[in-house]
């Protein structure tokens, strides 16, 4: 058996500085010593229990010739990780096996009550040919928080990252050799017990599938048009908008179609009487402007109301922006009237979404439904014409970090 396939004991991940735990900690992290004190499968699965079932020669798929042309979520690598959980026995051994269909009971909670959550993260092949994951501990911390809210079982971040590392080792040839492509990773946790009562799942399954994705911007930045209509909402106080639960996505598909019918690619999600900006499509939103006091300011809506997914890219842009110190960086609530006013006064320079798929996505136009007049207003956002290049600098820097051209202490994990 080749060395990479042998079971590897979990290494110590000392190089994850406490700074990261701190930034992940808006997010109640459990002190890790406590988790590692004892072997307890009620609390987590273990990297050291990993069982690997190798694919037969017939099961390996041919890799795409030109990875830059790959569309998101259409091609999957050879292997997947699975791990079952039950209330009585805790976590079973994690397994890596050839990707295949899951056997799911027709009464499983995931199929009826959306007992499901997921994460989206990426592995990159750097210019030095090393494979790296971008801030995986942030995704795993969010996944744990989501699991608690979804009443699905908890697990340990580092054990999960250990297993993900093994999965990447097995599928390493699927990580494209290109600095515009990457391997998308989709950890998923579903409730599988077959009882129809709406209640806590007593059985669950964790699984991870991966797939190569091509260039998001093959012909340069493409500004998007947004439909902003406060008659549709994504999240509300007392709901679960801050968690990556499947239930946040199903209701958006119809609204997305509504947007498409008005020639908009994404929805700008507004909330409340004042029409506060919250998210764009499935991304966080950033705005670069000169505020009313005349300061140059990067602004994004805050997390405290629970209406916004705490994005890993969002957190990274905020940290970089603050580190650079070139302008004011603010997390505060922002509404459509402020946006319209700033546009009219030519103080709004850039608006962009941020997310794992694209890093940044420039906004070119907002089709705004004015609830008072019941008419649509077209707002042009001059992002592409901005002379400040704020979005561009974020894009370049994050890309340089992801492909190993510059080292950002503790952000990338080598495989």
């Amino acid at each position, binding site marked *: 058996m080749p060395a990479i396939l042998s079971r590897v004991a979990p290494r110590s991940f000392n190089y994850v500085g406490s700074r990261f735990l701190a930034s992940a900690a808006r997010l109640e992290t459990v002190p890790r010593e406590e988790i590692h004190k004892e072997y307890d499968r009620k609390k987590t699965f273990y990297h050291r229990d990993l069982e690997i079932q190798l694919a037969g020669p017939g099961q390996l798929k041919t890799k795409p010739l030109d990875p830059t042309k790959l*569309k*998101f*979520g*259409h091609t*999957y690598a050879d292997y997947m990780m699975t791990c079952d959980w039950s209330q009585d026995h805790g976590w079973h051994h994690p397994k890596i096996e050839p*990707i295949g*269909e*899951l*056997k*799911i*009971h*027709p*009464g499983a909670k*995931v*199929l*009826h*009550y*959306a*007992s*499901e959550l*997921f994460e989206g993260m990426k592995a990159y092949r750097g210019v030095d040919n090393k494979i790296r994951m971008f801030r995986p501990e942030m995704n795993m911390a969010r996944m744990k928080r989501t699991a608690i*809210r*979804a*009443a699905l079982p908890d697990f340990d971040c580092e054990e999960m990252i250990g297993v993900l590392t093994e999965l990447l080792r097995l599928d390493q040839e699927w990580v494209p050799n290109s600095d515009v492509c990457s391997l*998308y990773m*989709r950890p*998923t946790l579903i409730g599988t017990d*077959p*009882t*129809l*009562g*709406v*209640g*806590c*799942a007593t059985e669950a399954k964790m*699984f991870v*599938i991966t*797939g190569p994705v091509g260039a998001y911007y093959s012909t340069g930045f493409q500004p998007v048009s947004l439909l902003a209509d*406060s008659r*549709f*909402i994504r999240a*509300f*106080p*007392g*709901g*679960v908008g801050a968690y990556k*639960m*499947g*239930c*946040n*996505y*199903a*209701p*958006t*598909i*119809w609204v*997305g*179609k*509504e947007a498409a*019918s008005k020639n908009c690619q994404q929805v700008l999600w507004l909330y409340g009487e004042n029409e506060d900006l919250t998210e764009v499509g499935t991304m966080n939103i950033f705005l670069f402007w000169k505020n009313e006091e005349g300061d140059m300011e990067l602004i994004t809506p805050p997390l405290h109301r629970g209406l916004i997914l705490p994005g890993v890219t969002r957190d990274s842009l905020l940290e970089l922006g603050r580190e650079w110190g070139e302008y004011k960086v603010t997390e505060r609530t922002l509404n459509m009237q402020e946006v319209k006013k700033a546009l009219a006064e030519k103080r709004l320079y850039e608006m962009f979404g941020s997310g794992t798929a694209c890093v940044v996505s420039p906004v070119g136009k907002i089709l705004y439904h004015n609830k008072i007049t019941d008419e649509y207003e077209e707002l042009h956002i001059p992002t592409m014409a901005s002379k400040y290049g704020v979005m561009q600098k974020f894009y370049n820097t994050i890309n340089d970090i992801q492909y190993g051209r510059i080292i950002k202490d503790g952000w990338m994990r080598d495989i």
Partner: protein
Amino acid sequence: MQKISSISLARFPISNACSSTRRTHSSFQYANLTVEKSTKKQRLPSDPDKLGFGRYFSNHMIDIDWDVKDGWFAPKIRPFQNFSIHPASKVLHYAQEIFEGLKAYYGVDGKIRVFRPELNMERMRRSARRATLPDFNTREALLLMDELIRTDADMIPKTDQASLYIRPMMFATDQHLGIGESMQAKWACFTAITGSYFDYERGIRLLADPEMVRSWKGGVGQYKMGCNYAPTIFVGKMAAMHGCDQAMWLSGDNRMVTEAGAMNLFMLWTNEDNELELITPSTESGLLLPGITRQSVLELAREWNLMKVSEANFTMCDLAKAIREHRVHEFFVSGTAANVGPVSEILHCDKERGIMEKLLIPTMNSKMQLYKRLHTTLSDIHYGRIEKPEWQRVVEL
């Protein structure tokens, strides 16, 4: 053959661009059904009290595939068994799933009756549109469900303490991770032998916490989409920690009362104008599910004409005030699984006053016993003790 009452689809804004015409068939067809009989038999506990809710599944299920190119495939009734689902299927990630819940009953005259199934199928079609899943024909779905019930008819306990719970469902099986309309879907239906849902003797206790919200204006609270349920599981756990059976859902800044658990709710009270009134929150807000039992309770109460019957919104504040002034006589929930169930207590987290207030409701000691009369009447219709043909679809054996 039962007459299918025509129910107009609820109005909601769907632009023309969204109404798709690409399907080759507008619905699956009963005429194309194939049946594969199961050789295995599910074993049931002999005591109906031990059945619980949705634990014992019967031997067969309906399974129909759809894809955007070919439309609906031929329906199958096959042995009840696991689905094989690709790990990238949209249902597992983005909750593209809808369902229904209805029941068949073994009547005192030996006939099997399904309670108002056409209403469930119409609601399922409305949910399908909102969830961007394919449409189907109500009549064809009803014929298929009749056939499924017939196939497993011998499993329905011959008692009025149990029933056959029917669970039609539809979900997106498209294997692409992009968030968008699914190119493939599955329509399925299975049944479960079911006992009683609640202990009705004790009354139901509800937890009303304005910080736990089920639905909001602009959302999908009025559709039976899976996504409405996942966030409630944790809240149900919190309710249990407070010794309550269910959460009572409040919505909006004014804390409008909407639903309890996964059920609609009713209040019999003396209102501010000193009239006796049966009131249930209006479905116009789009915040609550238009329940079939809810509709039936309203229709019965209007028919009996014993009091004013209203569909109107009321707030937690109105409710708490009325309970304190002893104006609330009965408070009860309605749903397919629960029928009608009395509420004895609401534990209200009053954030303004910073207290947990226990509001006791004398439902079970009320003079009128309206909830009991409704429960009995509905149950009599279910089990055929009362004939109400327009509410009973008889499955010919």
